[in-house]
Each structure stands twice: as C-alpha cells, then as structure tokens.
C-alpha cells in the first residue's frame, strides 16, 4: 500500500530534527503535517466508503441472505477483537500524551503495548479467517454454502466480508510496521516535548483504523442476526 511512506513523510522531518526549508517555523511545520495527515485520512474514509456503499446496496438487495450469513460470524471473537482494538486505541492515546510531555520511557512502553494489542487483533482475525477457510466460506472456486437458496448471494456477502475486513487488516499490518518504526525512533531519542509530530500522526492513523472497525463490527457481526 502507498500508506507507509506517506505517513512517515507526514512526520515532516528530515534525518535530523531540523526545520525543513519550506517552513518558517516549527509551529507551521507541525500544523502542516497534522493537517496533511487529516487530509490523508479523508481519502481513507472515501477508500473504505466505496466498500461500505457496496455493502449497503447488497444488504438492501438481499436482506434474507444477509441474515443467513451473519449467523456464520463469530460474535464472541468479533466482540473480543473490538475490545482489543479499543484498548490499543487507549494505549496509543496515552503514548501520544507521553510524547507530548517528553516522557521517553512511558512513550516506548505505551507504543509496545499498542503494538502487542495490534498483534493480538491480527491473530484473532487470523483465527476467524481460518474458521472461514475450514467452512469453505472463502469466495472463489472452493466456496460452498449450507443453504442452497443463498448459494450465490452468500458468496457475494462473504466476498464483502473478506474485502472489508481484509482491507482493514492490511491497514493494521501497515500500522504495526509504523509503530515499530516509532519505537525505534523513540529509542534513538528522536522525540521530545517540542517535537513529536510522527507519534501524533501515526496515532491519528491508528485511531482511524480503530474507527473503521467500530463500524465494521456492528455491520458484519450484529445487524441481521435475527431477521
């Protein structure tokens, strides 16, 4: 994905912490990088938006098939994963706070917690994907569905499930890579109370990924379980 170089660049910093030539002062540089990050998140919203649009249309067209497939979602794992991500968002917020106050140790620890929680999320997601694999619910030639009536429509819905959670998981993986970079940078004393833009921006990215999941969870796991 094009994300990773982008986000690092949003840190807006050269190899040393000096001000880049195009800026007047570090305040301008900080504001500019954060605004750039927000603009980037804007495109991310639309990127996921296309998929949410497809989801909405098919949910509208095939409510019955939808109800049927949502029974195959693992509610427990989904809920646990939501909680895990929220925890990681919290630790990330705390990491940003630590960096704002220039507390290096706390910063590193919070980043490591966040990284671990991100790993846990991906692991649980992997378990779920494995379940789907065993159940032949991965779209494609080997796809099989229990209810013949929804054989086709269910495949579309599982396709959307995999596309949406898969894209989200890719963002998580990128995020894990970014966190690792942050930890290394923090260990090398790159940040201080006056300069922490990369932490702030990658924090924004991480929260954004969390928000996507906050919507994916009800849409894929909760709604329609009864219909």
């Amino acid at each position, binding site marked *: 994905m094009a994300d990773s170089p982008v986000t690092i660049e949003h840190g807006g910093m050269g190899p040393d912490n000096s001000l880049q030539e195009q800026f007047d002062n*570090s*305040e*301008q540089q*900080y*504001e500019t990088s*954060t*605004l750039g990050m*927000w*603009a980037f*998140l*804007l495109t991310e*919203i*639309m990127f*996921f*938006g*296309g998929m*949410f*649009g497809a989801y*909405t*249309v098919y949910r*509208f*067209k095939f409510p019955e098939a939808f109800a049927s497939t949502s029974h195959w979602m693992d*509610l427990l794992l*989904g*809920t646990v994963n*939501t*909680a895990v991500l*929220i*925890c990681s*968002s*919290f630790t*990330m*917020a*705390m990491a940003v*706070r630590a960096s*704002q*106050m220039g507390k290096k140790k706390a910063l590193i620890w919070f980043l490591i917690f966040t990284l671990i929680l991100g790993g846990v999320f991906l692991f649980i997601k992997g378990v779920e994907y494995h379940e789907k694999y065993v159940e032949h619910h991965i779209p494609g030639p080997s796809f099989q569905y229990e209810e013949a009536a929804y054989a086709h429509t269910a495949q579309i819905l599982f396709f959307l499930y995999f596309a949406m959670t898969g894209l989200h998981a890719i963002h998580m993986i990128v995020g894990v890579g970014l966190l690792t970079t942050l930890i290394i940078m923090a260990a090398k004393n790159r940040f201080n109370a*006056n300069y922490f833009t990369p932490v702030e921006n990658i*924090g*924004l990215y991480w*929260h*954004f990924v*969390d*928000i996507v999941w*906050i*919507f994916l*969870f*009800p*849409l894929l*796991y*909760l*709604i*329609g*379980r*009864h219909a």
Partner: protein
Amino acid sequence: MNGSPVSHHITPVRTYVIIFLTLLVLTYTTAKIGEIELGDWNFVVAISIAITKALLVILFFMHAKDSSNLTKMFIGAGFFWMMILILVTLCDYISRPWQSNPVWMR
C-alpha cells in the same frame, strides 16, 4: 491558530480513562443488544452506538475537540461525502421497484 509558540493542549489521563471505559461499556452493550430481537431497531441501535463510539474516539483520542475549525471541517467533509456516495447510490436501488410497471405498459 497561528503564531503562538509550540504549546499543545495535553488531555488529562482521567479523560482518557473515562472515554476508554465508556467505549468498552458501549461495546459490551451493543453486543448484548445484538442478541435481543428488536426488528428493524437492531440496526438503528447498533449504528447509533457505533457513531457514538466513533465520535468519542475522534473527539478525545484524536483531539478533534481541541483542533482548529479547519480540521473539524475536514472530518465533517469526509463523512459527508461518504454519505453522498452511499445514500445517493442507495436511492437508485430503493426507487427501482417503484417503476416496475412503466406507464406505457399498463
């Protein structure tokens, strides 16, 4: 917005913890409500809770509350445009059955 020396609003830990706990409670609630039969309301409740959670994350964890109006506008625009995409497309699908018997076929 401009000119002031680098000084950032630092949110107290208390706020973060409160938000964090609220988010967890909301997650639990929405999962439990998901198991109760509410008909179409399941959808409404689940989405409202999701929006609330997202707002909490945006406002507090992402510091939108303390950000410039410009940033707030960016965020608003993002969601607004996504809703254009989703709702206007959906309008087509909703209104298609209305015309299944065109006038000249009667």
